[in-house]
């Protein structure tokens, strides 16, 4: 288990220990459904570096480094859970995070007339990140009052990441070739998934017998190795602190 996963697990245990049943829960409250909108607060920026072919079949390769600033962004989350025994239950959650950004490319391209004389170019290109998390959640319902419920949950997650990655860099240059300019980048969509963990708390206020509103704070995390082509893989962090609010239904 990764450090991230351990931290999530410890937080969950602490939360379950503190939560004490304050009121008997209704026997009819067997299924919970929640839909939330919110945001993912964690920035999962990462960097990559690679070589690419220089113009004019130059025997010296060009070198590029790319910074992908994956900042926080909007999140949609849905959960379905079933109570199995007393306050304990199991559920499945789905979260989707999407964020557009602009990757910064810095490259060193060789001078066509002189060995070991590289020129720097810099530019940016738009990228996007999509994360789809499927979370198995072992939950414990704590009915604090007649209207107030707290659900604590934790479990493994499967995080799928689709990321725009830069695989080649284009540049322009002309005589006397003292400078070169970034003109664009070749990108591809890289997809991969990995198993991680999740845990969190959903606080629900029931405004009717079956319906309520909830505020959700959860943490999910995994490290995904993306295939960026040319036999290269880049490890990216997925998930993070997520918060949202929305409708809850209990029946």
């Amino acid at each position, binding site marked *: 288990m990764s450090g991230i996963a351990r931290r999530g697990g410890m937080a969950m245990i602490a939360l379950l220990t503190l939560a004490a049943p304050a009121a008997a829960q209704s026997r009819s409250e067997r299924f919970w459904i929640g839909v939330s909108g919110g945001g993912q607060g964690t920035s999962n920026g990462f960097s990559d570096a690679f070589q690419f072919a*220089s113009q*004019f*079949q*130059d*025997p*010296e390769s060009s070198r590029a480094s790319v910074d992908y600033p994956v900042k926080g962004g909007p999140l949609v989350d849905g959960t379905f859970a079933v109570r199995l025994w007393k306050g304990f239950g199991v559920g499945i959650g789905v979260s989707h995070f999407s964020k557009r950004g602009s990757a910064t490319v810095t490259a060193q391209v060789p*001078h*066509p*007339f*002189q*060995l070991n004389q590289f020129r720097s170019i810099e530019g940016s290109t738009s990228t996007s990140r999509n994360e789809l998390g499927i979370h198995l959640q072992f939950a414990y319902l704590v009915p604090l009052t007649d209207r107030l419920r707290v659900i604590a949950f934790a479990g493994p997650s499967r995080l799928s990441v689709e990321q725009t990655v830069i695989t080649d860099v284009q540049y322009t240059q002309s*005589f*006397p*070739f*003292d400078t070169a300019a970034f003109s664009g980048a070749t990108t591809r969509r890289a997809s991969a998934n990995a198993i991680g963990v999740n845990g969190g708390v959903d606080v629900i206020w029931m405004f009717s017998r079956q319906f309520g509103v909830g505020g959700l704070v959860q943490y999910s995390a995994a490290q995904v190795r993306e295939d960026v082509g040319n036999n290269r893989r880049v490890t990216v962090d997925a998930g993070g602190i997520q918060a949202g609010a929305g409708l809850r239904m209990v029946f």
Partner: protein
Amino acid sequence: MRLHRRFARAARVSTAVVLLLATGRIAAAQSSRDRVSVVPSSLMELRRWDAQTERMLRNRDLRMRDRHEDKLLEGRTIERADQYYKGVRVFGADVARQLQGGVLLSVFGTLYPNVSVDTVAKIDADRAREIVQAQSGAELGPARQPELVVLPRDDGGYALTWRLSAATDSDIRQYFVDAHDGAIVFDYSELERQAAVGRAQGVLGDTKKISVSGSSGHFIAQDQLRPPSIRTLDMKGSLSRTLQILNGFPIVASDFATDDDNNWTDGTIDDAHVYQGWTYDYYFKRFGRRGLDNHDIEITGLANPVRRTDLQTSSNVVIGTFFLNAFYAGDGYMVYGVGLPAGFFTRSPIGNQTWDFLSGALDIVAHELSHGVTQFTSSLIYLNESGALNEAFSDIMGTSAEFFFQPTGNGSMQADYLIGEDVVRPGGIRSMSNPAAYGDPDHYSKRFLGTADNGGVHTNSAIASQAFYLAIEGGTNATSGLSVQGVGAANREQIEKVFYRGFTELMPANATFSVARAVTIQAARDLYGAGGNVERAVTEAWTAVGVN
């Protein structure tokens, strides 16, 4: 005829579905003189061109060349037809039509509606073959038959020509031989060449980049990355071929230096080609000059003009010209001598010296190219003092190019004030800092007054070279004992610009040393102000070498 009829039937235009692939184009027919581009941008124009091409097909001014089913879009047919004039194909004139179910969807092409030329050939196909063989150096087999075509000329006219392709070891070329008088009126390479950068090993075993042309894994020493064409020919030791080229015979593809993997290993060719490019770069970057004539005249270097192994059967004149020499032959042509075989040496005031391939020294290559700059600027007469100034300018620019690209030092491929030291070892052939060590005058009072060497052009040049050196580095002239406060090595660019301006802009053709002093002082004032340290350094330098 069958193809023709199908074409005609299919050419009905539907008003229902018309794809105009070139929508947004402003003009339907873009004409340049007689040339008409068929690019309809509306249904009406499509109909008009359909009618026009139909008429031409009926008159056999258009003839079907190809008809095939479109492999990408089911149900579509592509047709191509060539334009003919009195039964002779018009080169480059054709239309391409796209049809679906007999409905014309698009038509694009180039037509020449006003062709006018006598279509009776005065020379036959065999004679045209002979002409192309002689021009290309290629031996053409019996299957290679020329085609009679009408060639639209750039000037708007037309020529009846025999079109024939000839392949050599480094090019495939289309020739158009005028069918009336046998002149080659147009030719172009069919080999798709691209600029390529390779790796080259120099005369001294160093590695450098080389800018060449490449096609299908075959590379030739023709630079496509710099504004002028810079090419290097491999004479393969043939003195007769070298002389042919210097005497104006056409260069053919087999004359070019070539390499199969772009990893060049013939040092004399590699250095000649690379250093010609560097010299162009130096003039451009330092002075904004575009080549020898400032208009990017083609630069041609001839390497391997003789074989080293032929040394002992060569005359002294040949040895002095093509072994122990490099020279500028006019109009952008340079020849680089091959040096001496191992075990041979020359005697000089500084001792015995071996000679490597002369193109292996950047200052020598830049020296020769600088003679070209002189040719197109001051035209300093190559005799007596003006001749010495001509030589001095080449030494000055050759050394300056060295300092521009190489680190300062006394070792191999390091910048110093010796001439040719990288290939004439040890010590090179002249010294700007200490001319006397090579038996050359460092002071005007010691100038050579005889008639040999055109009045000592390679000897007396040292006087001006010493002035250049002192203006930069400062120091004391050994003969006069006068000291000069130079601008310093960090400011060498100032003195380089002063001498460049003086020698290329202000210098007359029959200049004396005294005139050289005046024009460089004037250049210093022009560039850096009167009474400044640059003018002072230049003035003191000329005074120190006894030129007033």
